[in-house]
């Protein structure tokens, strides 16, 4: 390993690559398209080639991380899982579903889904992937004893059974988007014994085999020689390191000790560019930062107050200052530009103190005092974002009292406990998934405790609607309702910002559904 560490650093102070700032800022407008920035120009898109060690330094990873796919909760665990495992279905870089362990899938009525399981795929242990393994893997997330974070996906599932090389999943109501749920990163296919998987095992059917794993420190994996995808998994070896300190992460990349880092502080992006030792990738996706209000509690139970708060925030300024321009303004819309039915034509909400005052008067108020609870655990820069919000809201006669909460225990004691706080969403590939998780009546993470009759009615209808146009119309109406009657202020969509060494090449299009190419950088990228 010292060999890697002592590798001469490539610092070329005079060979400055073209400045990409302008290009980056245009990225938001491109919408769904993932964007790769041509730092090394031609080389980046050359044919993939096999070989090399891919060293990834991530600002996540705890000593408490384990192997259980149901408990994956941070980027480290997500990338580590993407290296070991396959799911039934993959989300391609353009957002379309493509077959993975499920060779094909179909449903006549949206209620009974048949997935045909690919033959000839083997686990790292050599065992062949069977229908029983797949069922055991899904059942790990289902049932009363399940501790999985995606247990709720399986609430509508009444039965999962084998039928030859197929598995048949029966739902209690039609859901045209069910296959999308099956692409979730928690649903790793693992070998089953007596109908159960061993969640402490590393065995999977993914591109890399675990050599060693020290939680919170590093994981080393070697290429799976029997990987069934011929055109994926190009590296001989992958090393994933937890580097929690952002300066340490940046140093590791600049001194050539790692090839990819995530979570770059916006303030340092310009300096990193100037050094010319890295390619910066800024991928606009569905991820967004939010300020949910408790819609049951006064004053937030009055939609006029909520609208006043929505017009009292300067979204442009926040994208510039909090995201360093690496993001886009959101119109209080949890559905992002990478979604199929994104409603781009809604009336935009600009910072308008007069309009905010107007809505306050409608609510019968001259001024408003609210407390906003923030911590950087909600999202990086949340405290600063709160301060900016308080500043602009004051001009509209709204006095936001900023309460700084500790990061530790934030999700227990603040989120969904305090009436007005900060939070984030990774975004979802499917509209139904996003709405069902965060906005449906009684959903576990409906963090604004919001109930809207028409919205809930549309949600059920749209789920089983087969006509594309009607479906689009319904989802547009729902976005309109959430934006203008919902109880969540959504000022911005944050880009996924990452940086690679000049030795790493990526496909032309990088997936926007999750960070790091949908966590699949390990199997999609290669050494330039």
């Amino acid at each position: 390993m010292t060999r890697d560490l002592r590798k001469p650093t490539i610092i070329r102070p005079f060979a400055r690559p073209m400045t990409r700032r302008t290009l980056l800022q245009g990225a938001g407008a491109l919408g769904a398209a993932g964007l790769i920035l041509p730092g090394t120009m031609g080389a980046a898109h050359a044919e993939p080639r096999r070989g090399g060690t891919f060293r990834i330094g991530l600002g996540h990873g705890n000593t408490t991380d384990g192997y259980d796919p149901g408990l994956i909760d941070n980027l480290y665990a997500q990338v580590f899982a993407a290296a070991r495992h396959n799911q039934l279905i993959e989300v391609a870089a353009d957002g379309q579903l493509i077959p993975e362990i499920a060779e094909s899938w179909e449903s006549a009525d949206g209620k009974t889904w048949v997935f045909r399981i690919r033959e000839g795929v083997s686990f790292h242990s050599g065992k062949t992937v069977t229908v029983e393994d797949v069922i055991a893997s899904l059942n790990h997330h289902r049932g009363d004893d399940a501790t999985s974070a995606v247990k709720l996906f399986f609430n509508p599932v009444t039965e999962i059974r084998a039928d030859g090389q197929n598995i048949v999943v029966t739902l209690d109501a039609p859901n045209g988007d069910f296959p999308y749920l099956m692409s979730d990163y928690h649903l790793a296919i693992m070998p089953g014994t007596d109908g159960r998987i061993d969640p402490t095992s590393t065995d999977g059917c993914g591109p890399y085999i675990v050599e060693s794993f020290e939680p919170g420190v590093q994981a080393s994996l070697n290429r799976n020689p029997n990987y069934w995808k011929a055109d994926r998994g190009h590296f001989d070896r992958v090393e994933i390191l937890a580097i929690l300190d952002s300066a340490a992460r940046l140093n590791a990349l600049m001194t050539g000790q790692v090839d990819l880092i995530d979570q770059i502080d916006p303030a340092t992006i310009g300096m990193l560019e100037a050094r010319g030792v890295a390619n910066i990738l800024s991928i606009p996706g569905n991820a967004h930062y939010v300020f949910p209000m408790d819609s049951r509690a006064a004053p937030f139970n009055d939609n006029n107050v909520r609208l006043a708060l929505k017009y009292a925030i300067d979204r442009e300024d926040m994208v510039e200052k909090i995201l360093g321009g690496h993001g886009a303004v959101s119109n209080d819309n949890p559905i992002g530009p990478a979604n199929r039915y994104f409603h781009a034509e809604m009336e935009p909400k600009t910072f308008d103190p007069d309009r905010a005052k107007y809505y306050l008067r409608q609510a019968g108020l001259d001024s408003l005092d609210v407390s906003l609870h923030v911590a950087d655990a909600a999202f990086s820069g949340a405290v600063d974002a709160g301060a900016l919000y308080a500043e602009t809201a004051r001009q509209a006669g709204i006095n936001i009292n900023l309460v700084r909460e500790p990061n530790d225990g934030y999700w227990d004691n603040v989120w969904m406990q305090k009436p007005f706080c900060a939070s984030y969403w990774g975004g979802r590939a499917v509209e139904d998934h996003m709405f069902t998780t965060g906005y449906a009546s009684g959903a576990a993470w409906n963090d604004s405790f919001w109930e809207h009759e028409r919205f809930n009615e549309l949600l059920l209808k749209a789920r089983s609607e087969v006509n594309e146009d009607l479906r689009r119309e319904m989802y547009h109406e729902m976005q309109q309702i959430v934006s203008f009657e919902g109880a969540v202020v959504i000022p911005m969509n944050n880009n996924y910002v990452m940086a690679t060494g000049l030795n790493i090449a990526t496909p032309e299009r990088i997936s926007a559904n999750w960070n790091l190419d949908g966590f699949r950088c390990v199997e999609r990228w290669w050494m330039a």
Partner: protein
Amino acid sequence: MGALLRMILQRLALGVLTLFVVSVVIFGATELLPGDLASSLLGQAATPETVAALRRQLGLDLPAPVRYWNWLTGALQGDFGVSLANRRPISDMIAARLGNTIFLALYAAALAVPLALVLGILAALWRNSVFDRVSNAGALTAISFPEFFVAYILVLWLAQSGYFPSMVRISPVSTFADKIYMAFLPALTLTLVVTAHMMRMTRAAIINLMAQPYIEMARLKGLSPLRIVLRHALPNALAPIINVVALNLAYLITGVVVVEVVFVYPGLGQLMVDSVAKRDIAVVQAIALIFASAYVLLNLTADVLATLTNPRLMSKG
């Protein structure tokens, strides 16, 4: 010698009692923290059902005294159990990291202690000289900067220019020479942080003795100043120096989490912080006991060594 043995045994017994109290306090304190492992593990993904299911699986639904008792009986049999969070044996998780932490502590001590003693003795010898002032000011400056600042400066000077790695990647297969090379920057950071304390104590203790009549006697005999300091002053100044060295060693074992984070060093501090954040009580307890043991043992060693250097204490019992 019997007295010394008795003292050691007495101190060890007290040490065990201390450890017990520490474990109760730590357990109580972690109980007071809001939230528990189940909800921390699930994070934003926690729903009441999944939290309840996980709590049942982990045995967190049992009352606190029962959990403490289960843990204590296990620990007494040398079984720290498995981490509640990732179900790995705690002894495995800690063993490698304890080794790393001790390696870094000894490395830093091997640099800092001789440096501090030499500087301290020379400063005492050339009291109020330019050397005295410069070394004092330098050491105080180093200790006054926050650790992470010292660390970043070293990274800027020594890592970005390619001399040393900014990140420590120690694995079981690393050779000793590799480890020395890779861990140089964190060790140097810690050296800068702890040297001042030991150096000033050495200087003060020796200067204090230099006013004694027996030193004056030695001087009148015509001995060289270096010989006076080394042969006559230093042996009598050893007790306070040993104490301050022991305290600094304990600090190097228990208090270096910031340096661990900056250099991505896989030591115990980071494990402790993660485990507290996740409420993984079993791991927190085990590490707290290791830290407490480090203090108890180092203080005991310091006392024993200080007694050995003092013939009056030795002959009394």
